[in-house]
């Protein structure tokens, strides 16, 4: 009932492994059905173009779920996540490769917790675009 990562094993400044996923139309449809968010912005290309996007975009919460997964895959237990606060800065389009990761910014030996700065990004037109930035997560360590 806890993390697989021991507090003594981590250091401030250490990066966690990057989680990478190609975002596909069927993923976003599955997320709409599972979450109940049926906004046409995530399903209907014509609607998305009508508000200025080249096509449908992924749900912000879909992107957030992958940030969470990067953290919980590293810590080894989804139940060890105590808090997260993300700022959405850019949308994610279909067939883009979404990467998520983080870096340890503080450890609390008394509480046996760690705080991480977390991010999500895609490559677009040869540039790295941050979809999530200035964001942080807190986890319980073993």
């Amino acid at each position, binding site marked *: 009932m806890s993390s697989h990562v021991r507090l003594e094993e981590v250091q401030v400044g250490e990066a966690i492994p990057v989680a990478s996923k190609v975002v596909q139309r069927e*993923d976003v449809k599955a*997320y709409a059905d*599972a*979450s*109940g968010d049926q906004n046409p912005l995530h399903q209907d290309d014509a609607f998305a173009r009508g508000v200025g996007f080249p096509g449908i975009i992924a749900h912000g919460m879909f992107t957030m779920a992958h940030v969470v997964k990067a953290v919980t895959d590293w810590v080894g237990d989804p*139940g060890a996540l105590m*808090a*997260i*606060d993300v*700022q959405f800065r850019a949308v994610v389009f279909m067939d883009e490769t979404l990467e998520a990761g983080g870096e340890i910014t503080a450890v609390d030996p008394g509480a046996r917790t760690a705080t991480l700065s977390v991010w999500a990004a895609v490559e677009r037109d040869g540039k790295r675009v941050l979809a999530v930035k200035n964001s942080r997560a807190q986890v319980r360590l073993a």
Partner: protein
Amino acid sequence: MALNTELIGKEYAPHTITVEREHVLGFARAIAEDAPVIVDAEAARAAGYPDQLAPPTFVTTMQIMTSAQIVADPELGLDYARVVHGEQAYEWHRPIHVGDSLTAVPRIADISSKGPLEFLVIEAEIKDAVGETVVTARTTLLSRGTAGGGG
């Protein structure tokens, strides 16, 4: 049209769900989550949990319902076509598991503006069947170009 700041502090109707195994598994598949404590009840119990855990962001499924009431409140004056999800925060007091009965009570925590942007902050306390807080959720929606009644 600017948002109605008189609604700061307004509470909306509670929304209750029971966390169903199939819904948890469907949500996990949609986000490619395959942690044993989420997809396997035996692994969850072996790790000391009462049943399979829901993925942490499963709580989002409740917010779709709670936010919908606020977004649709005619007194608020929100034009949903102008809305962007700016920020999302969760604090888990314990993990959510299959079988939990959860009740969310949403309220408007704040309305503010910065330049042409307005910020609508919705907070929800999500409690279990015995009234203990399980998750605190805070959602910040951005309304573009509506501050100051400028259109």
